[in-house]
């Protein structure tokens, strides 16, 4: 029972961090209908930039975070303007493939710049683990979770109340109508990419702080897919719930099954769950079946 509670609670914390990364995907999908396969690489780049600022320039984290946010926003906006802008109106397959190509470029660049070796962050948070009754929570995980939740909350508030958030929601709902209401839809696309990149790279910093950073960190980005399929592609709340579910499933599978398979089940479990869901509900758990017209 102890182990069970322990697994569930650390799964919950990891899930909160996943939710932030999934948010980076959902923000882009919601406004532009683009499946961004490079979310994981945005995350990895964010983590590396933060690492460089901390280690090479020896800046304080309070300077580092805003700088990473600026860099990520620039990266996201640049990608949208230089690549995705040209893909408007292209078939879905091509757009998916462009983002896959992008992820390959970012992965290669990161390895050329920072090398393939594993780097760990200088300590950000107090090292003392958090103890709740019989449950012991790693401090990096706990503070990372708190940070992720704060960022998610900020995004939710921006989306709900700020002018730019309302404009983004309008664009997501109906591009033509938003356009005729005087919203610059193309700018909204750029902003969504910037926001998506920010969310992903902040997630990357948190993940990097827990487990270190290397170019393949972006593979964690693949976990977005089980999360968004669970939570619905375009729902922010769905992404948060999906994140928690995936975090918990993963931890339980890792804790109970990994010993039998010599590792690996932990990362695989969400995808098995995902396949089951798709077999039963082809549009995901909360996805809506579109009414198709002829």
């Amino acid at each position, binding site marked *: 029972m102890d182990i069970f509670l322990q697994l569930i609670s650390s799964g919950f914390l990891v899930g909160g961090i996943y939710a932030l990364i999934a948010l980076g995907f959902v923000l882009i999908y919601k406004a532009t209908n683009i499946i961004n396969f490079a979310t994981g690489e945005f995350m990895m780049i964010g983590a590396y930039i933060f690492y460089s600022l901390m280690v090479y320039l020896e800046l304080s984290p309070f300077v580092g975070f805003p700088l990473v946010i600026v860099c990520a926003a620039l990266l996201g906006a640049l990608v949208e303007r230089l690549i995705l802008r040209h893909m408007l109106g292209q078939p879905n397959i091509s757009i998916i493939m462009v983002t896959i190509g992008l992820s390959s470029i970012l992965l290669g660049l990161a390895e050329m710049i920072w090398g393939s070796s594993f780097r760990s962050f200088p300590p950000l948070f107090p090292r003392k683990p958090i103890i709740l009754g019989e449950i012991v929570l790693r401090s990096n995980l706990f503070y990372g979770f708190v940070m992720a939740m704060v960022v998610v909350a900020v995004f939710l508030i921006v989306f709900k109340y700020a002018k730019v958030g309302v404009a983004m929601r309008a664009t997501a709902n109906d591009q033509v109508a938003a356009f005729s209401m005087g919203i610059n839809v193309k700018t909204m696309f750029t902003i969504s990419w910037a926001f998506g990149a920010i969310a992903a790279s902040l997630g990357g910093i948190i993940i990097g702080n827990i487990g270190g950073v290397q170019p393949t960190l972006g593979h964690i980005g693949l976990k977005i897919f089980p999360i968004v399929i669970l939570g619905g592609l375009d729902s922010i709340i769905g992404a948060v719930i999906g994140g928690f579910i995936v975090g918990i499933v993963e931890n339980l599978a890792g804790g109970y099954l990994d010993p039998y398979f010599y590792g690996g089940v932990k990362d695989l479990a969400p995808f098995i769950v995902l396949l089951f869901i798709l077999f039963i509900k082809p549009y995901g758990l909360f996805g809506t079946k579109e*009414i198709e017209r*002829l």
Partner: protein
Amino acid sequence: MSILCVDDVSLAFGGLEVLCDVSFEVNEGEIFAIIGPNGAGKTSVLNIISGFYRPKKGTVFFKGADIGHLTPDKRAAQGMSRTFQNIALYHGMSVLDNIKLGAHSHLKTGLMGGLWYWGAAHREEMALRKKIEEDIIDFLEIETIRKQPVGSLAYGLQKRVELARALAMRPEILLMDEPVAGMNAEETEDMARFILDIKEEHNITIVLIEHDMQMIMDISDQVLVLNFGQKLTCGTPDEVQKHPEVIKAYLGREKNQ
């Protein structure tokens, strides 16, 4: 004798009632027109007939049998063919291949036969080409464009290629969704002539949706009027034109202008 019978059909998307208790019968060899204002549910009727939408209630009989359980492709194989409001040609293929695609259910080549090709598949393709050239390309006067990719064609020609594809299905009933929408007077006249020829020479029953009142009244044998998903009336063009409800709901508006 009725070839197609739509009996008491209702359709809803969520809470939105699209069709409500619509019934009508189409007789063999006639031109049956469906008219009504935008959003009246005309295209939905065609979609239910061809099996793309499942009705909430009601049945569709084709050649006397209930076809409610059949998927669209099975209905096509039974002799039901269709053209679309927004042209649905395959832009990755030439005109000829688009037309050949229409003959899909009449061909037999399977996966293995296709991979091997020589022999049966080759003979079948050649016979198909001959039939299409003689019966359809010649009839619709599209000889010069047969090798062109469909994307490069003018709108009126695309509509004609779509008709050619529908004819290649050798249908017993042809469902046409706004065949002359967006065409100029000359193209409309051509299309009307083709429709009449199809009915008379090929003996194909035609169900068509159209907004061009003059053409409807000229060529159709029966007219069904829909408004807000409900059947207003159904009868010959003369009867329909005189029907007070119709004048009020649809034609009347034009008179006032």
